[in-house]
Protein backbone atom coordinates (compact mmCIF):
# COMPACT_ATOMS: atom_id res chain seq x y z
CA UNK A 1 0.00 0.00 0.00
CA UNK A 2 1.15 3.50 -0.74
CA UNK A 3 1.49 5.94 2.11
CA UNK A 4 -1.58 7.89 0.97
CA UNK A 5 -3.87 4.88 1.24
CA UNK A 6 -2.95 4.36 4.87
CA UNK A 7 -3.05 8.11 5.48
CA UNK A 8 -6.81 7.98 5.05
CA UNK A 9 -7.03 5.35 7.79
CA UNK A 10 -4.79 7.50 9.99
CA UNK A 11 -6.97 10.56 9.41
CA UNK A 12 -9.99 8.56 10.57
CA UNK A 13 -8.23 7.09 13.59
CA UNK A 14 -6.84 10.42 14.76
CA UNK A 15 -9.91 12.48 13.86
CA UNK A 16 -7.72 14.80 11.81
CA UNK A 17 -9.99 17.45 10.25
CA UNK A 18 -7.64 18.30 7.38
CA UNK A 19 -7.15 14.67 6.39
CA UNK A 20 -10.86 13.99 6.71
CA UNK A 21 -11.65 17.02 4.58
CA UNK A 22 -9.42 15.62 1.84
CA UNK A 23 -11.20 12.33 2.18
CA UNK A 24 -14.57 14.05 1.72
CA UNK A 25 -13.34 15.93 -1.33
CA UNK A 26 -11.81 12.84 -2.88
CA UNK A 27 -14.60 10.34 -2.34
CA UNK A 28 -17.94 11.89 -1.36
CA UNK A 29 -18.88 12.93 -4.94
CA UNK A 30 -18.38 9.39 -6.21
CA UNK A 31 -20.28 7.80 -3.33
CA UNK A 32 -23.01 10.40 -3.64
CA UNK A 33 -23.43 9.67 -7.32
CA UNK A 34 -23.70 5.96 -6.58
CA UNK A 35 -26.37 6.51 -3.90
CA UNK A 36 -28.34 8.93 -6.07
CA UNK A 37 -28.30 6.54 -8.99
CA UNK A 38 -29.78 3.93 -6.67
CA UNK A 39 -32.81 5.76 -5.37
CA UNK A 40 -31.21 7.89 -2.66
CA UNK A 41 -30.92 11.61 -2.08
CA UNK A 42 -27.85 13.76 -1.47
CA UNK A 43 -28.76 13.72 2.24
CA UNK A 44 -28.93 9.92 2.26
CA UNK A 45 -25.47 9.93 0.70
CA UNK A 46 -24.10 12.20 3.44
CA UNK A 47 -25.47 9.89 6.15
CA UNK A 48 -24.20 6.73 4.48
CA UNK A 49 -20.78 8.29 3.91
CA UNK A 50 -20.51 9.28 7.58
CA UNK A 51 -21.72 5.90 8.80
CA UNK A 52 -19.23 4.14 6.52
CA UNK A 53 -16.32 6.15 7.92
CA UNK A 54 -17.42 5.25 11.45
CA UNK A 55 -17.61 1.57 10.45
CA UNK A 56 -14.07 1.83 9.08
CA UNK A 57 -12.95 3.63 12.24
CA UNK A 58 -14.26 0.82 14.42
CA UNK A 59 -12.71 -1.82 12.25
CA UNK A 60 -9.31 -0.18 11.98
CA UNK A 61 -9.20 0.43 15.74
CA UNK A 62 -8.79 -3.28 16.29
CA UNK A 63 -5.19 -4.38 16.29
CA UNK A 64 -5.62 -7.11 13.67
CA UNK A 65 -6.84 -4.72 11.00
CA UNK A 66 -4.74 -4.45 7.85
CA UNK A 67 -5.86 -2.42 4.86
CA UNK A 68 -5.80 -5.17 2.28
CA UNK A 69 -7.22 -3.21 -0.62
CA UNK A 70 -7.29 0.33 -1.91
CA UNK A 71 -8.97 2.60 0.62
CA UNK A 72 -11.66 3.51 -1.89
CA UNK A 73 -12.47 -0.13 -2.51
CA UNK A 74 -13.09 -0.61 1.20
CA UNK A 75 -15.09 2.61 1.51
CA UNK A 76 -17.20 1.83 -1.54
CA UNK A 77 -17.85 -1.70 -0.31
CA UNK A 78 -19.00 -0.46 3.10
CA UNK A 79 -21.24 2.24 1.59
CA UNK A 80 -22.72 -0.24 -0.80
CA UNK A 81 -23.55 -2.70 1.93
CA UNK A 82 -25.02 -0.01 4.18
CA UNK A 83 -27.18 1.37 1.39
CA UNK A 84 -28.20 -2.12 0.27
CA UNK A 85 -29.42 -2.90 3.79
CA UNK A 86 -31.35 0.32 3.93
CA UNK A 87 -33.01 -0.24 0.59
CA UNK A 88 -34.13 -3.65 1.73
CA UNK A 89 -35.72 -2.16 4.82
CA UNK A 90 -37.15 1.00 3.33
CA UNK A 91 -39.00 -0.42 0.41
CA UNK A 92 -41.80 -2.90 0.51
CA UNK A 93 -41.34 -3.42 -3.21
CA UNK A 94 -37.99 -4.59 -4.39
CA UNK A 95 -35.55 -1.84 -5.30
CA UNK A 96 -32.43 -3.81 -6.10
CA UNK A 97 -29.01 -2.31 -6.53
CA UNK A 98 -27.78 -2.44 -10.09
CA UNK A 99 -25.86 -5.67 -9.63
CA UNK A 100 -25.15 -7.89 -6.64
CA UNK A 101 -26.71 -6.70 -3.41
CA UNK A 102 -23.83 -7.37 -1.11
CA UNK A 103 -20.59 -6.20 -2.51
CA UNK A 104 -17.86 -8.65 -1.65
CA UNK A 105 -15.34 -7.25 0.78
CA UNK A 106 -12.04 -8.83 1.65
CA UNK A 107 -12.32 -7.44 5.17
CA UNK A 108 -15.01 -8.91 7.39
CA UNK A 109 -17.08 -6.03 8.69
CA UNK A 110 -20.41 -7.80 9.21
CA UNK A 111 -20.51 -7.00 12.92
CA UNK A 112 -19.86 -3.30 12.37
CA UNK A 113 -22.42 -3.17 9.57
CA UNK A 114 -25.06 -4.62 11.82
CA UNK A 115 -24.48 -1.99 14.47
CA UNK A 116 -24.45 0.85 11.96
CA UNK A 117 -28.20 1.24 11.50
CA UNK A 118 -28.90 1.33 15.18
CA UNK A 119 -26.07 3.81 15.70
CA UNK A 120 -27.41 6.07 12.97
CA UNK A 121 -30.78 6.18 14.73
CA UNK A 122 -29.10 6.86 18.10
CA UNK A 123 -26.89 9.54 16.61
CA UNK A 124 -29.78 11.30 14.84
CA UNK A 125 -31.56 11.47 18.20
CA UNK A 126 -28.45 12.61 20.03
CA UNK A 127 -27.91 15.45 17.55
CA UNK A 128 -31.35 16.80 18.42
CA UNK A 129 -30.44 17.27 22.07
CA UNK A 130 -29.35 20.66 23.29
CA UNK A 131 -25.65 21.30 23.64
CA UNK A 132 -25.63 20.98 27.44
CA UNK A 133 -27.31 17.58 27.33
CA UNK A 134 -24.86 16.43 24.67
CA UNK A 135 -21.86 17.50 26.77
CA UNK A 136 -23.23 15.85 29.87
CA UNK A 137 -24.19 12.58 28.22
CA UNK A 138 -20.87 12.31 26.42
CA UNK A 139 -19.09 12.41 29.77
CA UNK A 140 -21.62 10.08 31.33
CA UNK A 141 -21.30 7.48 28.57
CA UNK A 142 -17.52 7.79 28.77
CA UNK A 143 -18.02 6.50 32.33
CA UNK A 144 -16.90 9.66 34.08
CA UNK A 145 -17.95 9.87 37.71
CA UNK A 146 -20.84 12.23 38.48
CA UNK A 147 -18.49 14.25 40.73
CA UNK A 148 -16.13 14.79 37.81
CA UNK A 149 -18.99 15.69 35.48
CA UNK A 150 -20.33 18.20 38.01
CA UNK A 151 -16.96 19.88 38.16
CA UNK A 152 -16.17 19.79 34.45
CA UNK A 153 -19.49 21.26 33.45
CA UNK A 154 -19.54 23.70 36.34
CA UNK A 155 -22.85 22.41 37.67
CA UNK A 156 -24.16 23.50 41.06
CA UNK A 157 -24.15 20.10 42.75
CA UNK A 158 -23.77 16.37 42.18
CA UNK A 159 -27.47 15.96 42.93
CA UNK A 160 -28.33 18.47 40.23
CA UNK A 161 -25.97 16.76 37.79
CA UNK A 162 -27.67 13.42 38.43
CA UNK A 163 -31.10 14.93 37.94
CA UNK A 164 -29.96 16.60 34.74
CA UNK A 165 -28.35 13.38 33.50
CA UNK A 166 -31.66 11.59 33.96
CA UNK A 167 -33.58 14.35 32.15
CA UNK A 168 -31.16 14.30 29.22
CA UNK A 169 -31.15 10.55 28.93
CA UNK A 170 -34.93 10.41 29.18
CA UNK A 171 -35.13 12.93 26.35
CA UNK A 172 -32.68 10.89 24.27
CA UNK A 173 -34.66 7.70 24.87
CA UNK A 174 -37.94 9.38 23.96
CA UNK A 175 -36.45 10.79 20.75
CA UNK A 176 -35.21 7.31 19.85
CA UNK A 177 -38.54 5.68 20.59
CA UNK A 178 -40.38 8.29 18.54
CA UNK A 179 -38.22 7.57 15.48
CA UNK A 180 -40.10 5.72 12.75
CA UNK A 181 -37.12 3.37 12.37
CA UNK A 182 -37.25 2.33 16.01
CA UNK A 183 -39.86 -0.46 15.75
CA UNK A 184 -37.67 -2.22 13.19
CA UNK A 185 -34.67 -2.16 15.44
CA UNK A 186 -33.78 -5.48 16.94
CA UNK A 187 -32.28 -4.83 20.33
CA UNK A 188 -30.83 -7.66 22.27
Amino acid at each position, binding site marked *: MTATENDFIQAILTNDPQGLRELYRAFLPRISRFIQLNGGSA*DDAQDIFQDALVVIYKKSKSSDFVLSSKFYTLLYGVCRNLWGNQLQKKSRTEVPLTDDHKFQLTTDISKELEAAEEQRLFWDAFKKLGNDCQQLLKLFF*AKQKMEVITQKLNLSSVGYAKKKKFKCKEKLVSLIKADRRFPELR*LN
Partner: protein
Amino acid sequence: MEEQYNKIEDYLGGMLSADDQTAFEAALSADAELRAEVALHRQLAESFADPTELALRETLEQLAREEESTTKKTATVRPLPAKRGWMWPTLALAAMALGFYFLLPSIMGNGSKLPTTNPELEAIIERGSNPVYDFELSANQLASGGDAQLRIEGELFAVNLPADSSFVVEVYSSAPEDFPAKPLYSTVVRPVEDTSQPPMGFGGKKAFSVALEAKAPDQDGTYYFVVRDKAGEEIIYAGKVKAP
Protein backbone atom coordinates in the same frame (compact mmCIF):
# COMPACT_ATOMS: atom_id res chain seq x y z
CA MET B 1 -38.96 6.66 35.95
CA GLU B 2 -35.77 8.15 37.32
CA GLU B 3 -35.58 5.29 39.80
CA GLN B 4 -35.98 2.77 37.00
CA TYR B 5 -33.21 4.41 34.97
CA ASN B 6 -30.85 4.31 37.96
CA LYS B 7 -31.70 0.70 38.66
CA ILE B 8 -31.07 -0.29 35.04
CA GLU B 9 -27.78 1.60 34.97
CA ASP B 10 -26.64 0.04 38.23
CA TYR B 11 -27.61 -3.38 36.94
CA LEU B 12 -25.71 -2.92 33.68
CA GLY B 13 -22.73 -1.54 35.57
CA GLY B 14 -22.73 -4.49 37.96
CA MET B 15 -23.34 -2.16 40.89
CA LEU B 16 -26.31 -3.93 42.43
CA SER B 17 -25.93 -5.93 45.64
CA ALA B 18 -26.31 -9.68 45.24
CA ASP B 19 -29.87 -9.59 46.60
CA ASP B 20 -30.91 -6.67 44.43
CA GLN B 21 -29.42 -8.31 41.39
CA THR B 22 -31.35 -11.53 41.98
CA ALA B 23 -34.55 -9.55 42.44
CA PHE B 24 -33.90 -7.49 39.32
CA GLU B 25 -33.17 -10.55 37.22
CA ALA B 26 -36.38 -12.15 38.42
CA ALA B 27 -38.25 -9.01 37.37
CA LEU B 28 -36.46 -9.10 34.03
CA SER B 29 -37.47 -12.65 33.21
CA ALA B 30 -41.10 -11.83 33.97
CA ASP B 31 -41.32 -8.53 32.15
CA ALA B 32 -40.64 -8.25 28.41
CA GLU B 33 -41.05 -4.48 28.46
CA LEU B 34 -38.36 -4.14 31.10
CA ARG B 35 -36.10 -6.43 29.06
CA ALA B 36 -36.54 -4.16 26.04
CA GLU B 37 -35.77 -1.11 28.16
CA VAL B 38 -32.61 -2.71 29.56
CA ALA B 39 -31.55 -3.72 26.06
CA LEU B 40 -31.97 -0.15 24.84
CA HIS B 41 -29.93 1.23 27.73
CA ARG B 42 -27.22 -1.35 27.12
CA GLN B 43 -27.01 -0.54 23.42
CA LEU B 44 -26.94 3.17 24.13
CA ALA B 45 -24.09 2.75 26.58
CA GLU B 46 -22.16 0.68 24.05
CA SER B 47 -22.88 3.02 21.15
CA PHE B 48 -21.68 6.09 22.97
CA ALA B 49 -18.86 4.52 24.97
CA ASP B 50 -15.99 5.69 22.77
CA PRO B 51 -15.39 9.46 23.01
CA THR B 52 -13.04 9.40 20.01
CA GLU B 53 -15.77 7.88 17.89
CA LEU B 54 -18.20 10.63 18.95
CA ALA B 55 -15.57 13.28 18.24
CA LEU B 56 -15.11 11.73 14.80
CA ARG B 57 -18.88 11.92 14.21
CA GLU B 58 -18.81 15.58 15.19
CA THR B 59 -15.97 16.38 12.80
CA LEU B 60 -17.80 14.53 10.05
CA GLU B 61 -21.00 16.47 10.73
CA GLN B 62 -19.03 19.68 10.43
CA LEU B 63 -17.45 18.55 7.16
CA ALA B 64 -20.84 17.50 5.82
CA ARG B 65 -22.13 21.00 6.49
CA GLU B 66 -19.14 22.47 4.66
CA GLU B 67 -19.77 20.16 1.72
CA GLU B 68 -23.43 21.04 1.74
CA SER B 69 -22.70 24.73 1.42
CA THR B 70 -20.61 24.09 -1.65
CA THR B 71 -22.69 21.42 -3.36
CA LYS B 72 -26.31 22.05 -2.38
CA LYS B 73 -26.58 25.31 -4.24
CA THR B 74 -26.25 23.43 -7.48
CA ALA B 75 -28.20 20.37 -6.40
CA THR B 76 -30.94 19.31 -8.75
CA VAL B 77 -33.96 17.21 -8.02
CA ARG B 78 -34.26 14.34 -10.43
CA PRO B 79 -37.60 12.85 -11.36
CA LEU B 80 -38.04 9.41 -9.85
CA PRO B 81 -39.96 6.41 -11.18
CA ALA B 82 -43.43 6.34 -9.66
CA LYS B 83 -42.96 3.02 -7.87
CA ARG B 84 -40.43 4.58 -5.53
CA GLY B 85 -43.21 6.41 -3.75
CA TRP B 86 -41.39 6.12 -0.42
CA MET B 87 -38.79 8.55 -1.67
CA TRP B 88 -41.08 11.54 -1.45
CA PRO B 89 -40.73 12.18 2.25
CA THR B 90 -36.96 12.13 1.82
CA LEU B 91 -37.16 14.59 -1.04
CA ALA B 92 -39.51 16.80 0.92
CA LEU B 93 -37.06 16.79 3.79
CA ALA B 94 -34.19 17.58 1.46
CA ALA B 95 -36.18 20.42 -0.05
CA MET B 96 -36.99 21.73 3.42
CA ALA B 97 -33.37 21.49 4.46
CA LEU B 98 -32.42 23.37 1.34
CA GLY B 99 -35.05 26.01 2.04
CA PHE B 100 -33.82 26.33 5.59
CA TYR B 101 -30.26 26.66 4.38
CA PHE B 102 -31.15 29.68 2.32
CA LEU B 103 -33.39 31.12 5.02
CA LEU B 104 -30.84 30.76 7.74
CA PRO B 105 -28.73 33.83 6.94
CA SER B 106 -31.81 36.04 6.87
CA ILE B 107 -32.92 34.76 10.27
CA MET B 108 -29.57 34.71 11.98
CA GLY B 109 -27.89 37.61 10.28
CA ASN B 110 -24.71 36.60 8.44
CA GLY B 111 -24.52 33.31 10.28
CA SER B 112 -23.13 34.96 13.39
CA LYS B 113 -23.15 32.85 16.50
CA LEU B 114 -26.06 33.45 18.82
CA PRO B 115 -25.10 34.47 22.32
CA THR B 116 -27.60 32.36 24.28
CA THR B 117 -30.04 29.73 23.19
CA ASN B 118 -32.78 27.71 24.77
CA PRO B 119 -31.91 24.06 24.09
CA GLU B 120 -35.48 22.90 24.51
CA LEU B 121 -36.70 25.27 21.81
CA GLU B 122 -33.68 24.50 19.66
CA ALA B 123 -34.69 20.84 19.78
CA ILE B 124 -38.20 21.76 18.65
CA ILE B 125 -36.80 23.79 15.75
CA GLU B 126 -34.51 20.91 14.88
CA ARG B 127 -37.47 18.52 14.92
CA GLY B 128 -39.03 20.52 12.10
CA SER B 129 -42.61 21.19 11.29
CA ASN B 130 -45.63 19.05 11.92
CA PRO B 131 -46.28 17.03 8.72
CA VAL B 132 -49.98 17.93 8.62
CA TYR B 133 -49.47 21.65 9.11
CA ASP B 134 -46.20 22.30 7.44
CA PHE B 135 -45.05 25.81 8.38
CA GLU B 136 -42.13 27.70 6.90
CA LEU B 137 -41.88 31.02 8.68
CA SER B 138 -39.19 33.59 9.09
CA ALA B 139 -39.08 36.65 11.25
CA ASN B 140 -37.42 39.99 10.93
CA GLN B 141 -37.49 43.28 12.61
CA LEU B 142 -38.93 46.35 10.97
CA ALA B 143 -38.49 49.87 12.18
CA SER B 144 -41.75 51.74 11.76
CA GLY B 145 -42.13 55.11 13.43
CA GLY B 146 -41.02 55.06 17.03
CA ASP B 147 -41.54 51.41 17.88
CA ALA B 148 -39.69 48.58 16.20
CA GLN B 149 -41.99 45.86 14.91
CA LEU B 150 -41.26 42.18 14.71
CA ARG B 151 -42.75 40.72 11.55
CA ILE B 152 -43.25 36.99 11.32
CA GLU B 153 -44.32 35.73 7.94
CA GLY B 154 -44.16 32.81 5.62
CA GLU B 155 -46.20 29.93 4.34
CA LEU B 156 -48.23 27.13 5.72
CA PHE B 157 -48.57 24.07 3.52
CA ALA B 158 -51.49 21.80 4.25
CA VAL B 159 -53.75 19.50 2.28
CA ASN B 160 -56.83 21.09 3.71
CA LEU B 161 -57.55 23.82 6.17
CA PRO B 162 -61.06 24.52 7.48
CA ALA B 163 -62.28 28.01 6.58
CA ASP B 164 -61.90 29.62 10.00
CA SER B 165 -58.70 27.90 11.07
CA SER B 166 -56.46 29.78 13.42
CA PHE B 167 -53.23 29.17 15.25
CA VAL B 168 -51.65 30.68 18.30
CA VAL B 169 -48.26 32.32 17.86
CA GLU B 170 -46.14 33.04 20.91
CA VAL B 171 -42.84 34.83 21.21
CA TYR B 172 -40.33 33.79 23.88
CA SER B 173 -37.01 35.10 25.04
CA SER B 174 -34.07 32.69 25.09
CA ALA B 175 -34.20 32.40 28.89
CA PRO B 176 -34.88 28.74 29.62
CA GLU B 177 -37.18 29.57 32.52
CA ASP B 178 -39.49 31.57 30.26
CA PHE B 179 -40.49 28.60 28.16
CA PRO B 180 -43.24 27.44 28.15
CA ALA B 181 -44.76 29.37 31.08
CA LYS B 182 -43.96 32.98 30.20
CA PRO B 183 -44.29 34.02 26.59
CA LEU B 184 -43.47 37.68 25.94
CA TYR B 185 -46.68 37.81 24.02
CA SER B 186 -49.15 35.58 22.36
CA THR B 187 -51.46 36.25 19.46
CA VAL B 188 -53.83 34.48 17.08
CA VAL B 189 -53.13 34.20 13.38
CA ARG B 190 -55.44 33.11 10.56
CA PRO B 191 -53.71 31.72 7.47
CA VAL B 192 -55.07 32.92 4.12
CA GLU B 193 -55.02 30.65 1.10
CA ASP B 194 -52.39 31.72 -1.39
CA THR B 195 -53.93 30.99 -4.77
CA SER B 196 -50.90 32.24 -6.67
CA GLN B 197 -49.10 29.00 -5.85
CA PRO B 198 -50.23 25.73 -7.42
CA PRO B 199 -50.64 22.75 -5.07
CA MET B 200 -47.25 21.23 -4.31
CA GLY B 201 -46.12 18.00 -5.88
CA PHE B 202 -46.20 15.85 -2.80
CA GLY B 203 -49.51 15.16 -1.16
CA GLY B 204 -51.23 17.94 -3.12
CA LYS B 205 -50.66 20.44 -0.32
CA LYS B 206 -51.97 23.95 -0.76
CA ALA B 207 -50.12 27.07 0.29
CA PHE B 208 -51.49 29.54 2.82
CA SER B 209 -49.84 32.80 3.72
CA VAL B 210 -49.22 33.66 7.31
CA ALA B 211 -48.21 37.10 8.50
CA LEU B 212 -48.32 38.92 11.77
CA GLU B 213 -46.64 41.83 13.42
CA ALA B 214 -45.88 42.42 17.03
CA LYS B 215 -43.94 44.91 19.05
CA ALA B 216 -40.28 44.04 18.89
CA PRO B 217 -38.62 42.97 22.15
CA ASP B 218 -36.78 45.72 23.99
CA GLN B 219 -33.60 43.81 24.64
CA ASP B 220 -31.15 42.46 22.12
CA GLY B 221 -30.86 38.72 21.90
CA THR B 222 -32.36 35.61 20.39
CA TYR B 223 -36.11 35.30 20.37
CA TYR B 224 -38.16 32.26 19.55
CA PHE B 225 -41.57 32.15 17.97
CA VAL B 226 -43.74 29.14 18.53
CA VAL B 227 -46.86 28.17 16.58
CA ARG B 228 -49.41 26.14 18.49
CA ASP B 229 -52.76 24.66 17.56
CA LYS B 230 -55.92 26.69 18.16
CA ALA B 231 -56.25 25.41 21.71
CA GLY B 232 -52.74 26.64 22.42
CA GLU B 233 -51.53 23.16 23.31
CA GLU B 234 -49.60 21.23 20.71
CA ILE B 235 -46.50 22.92 19.32
CA ILE B 236 -46.60 22.75 15.55
CA TYR B 237 -43.61 24.82 14.58
CA ALA B 238 -40.88 26.93 16.08
CA GLY B 239 -38.39 29.37 14.65
CA LYS B 240 -36.05 32.00 15.93
CA VAL B 241 -34.92 35.51 15.22
CA LYS B 242 -32.06 37.61 16.40
CA ALA B 243 -33.03 41.07 17.51
CA PRO B 244 -32.37 43.77 16.66
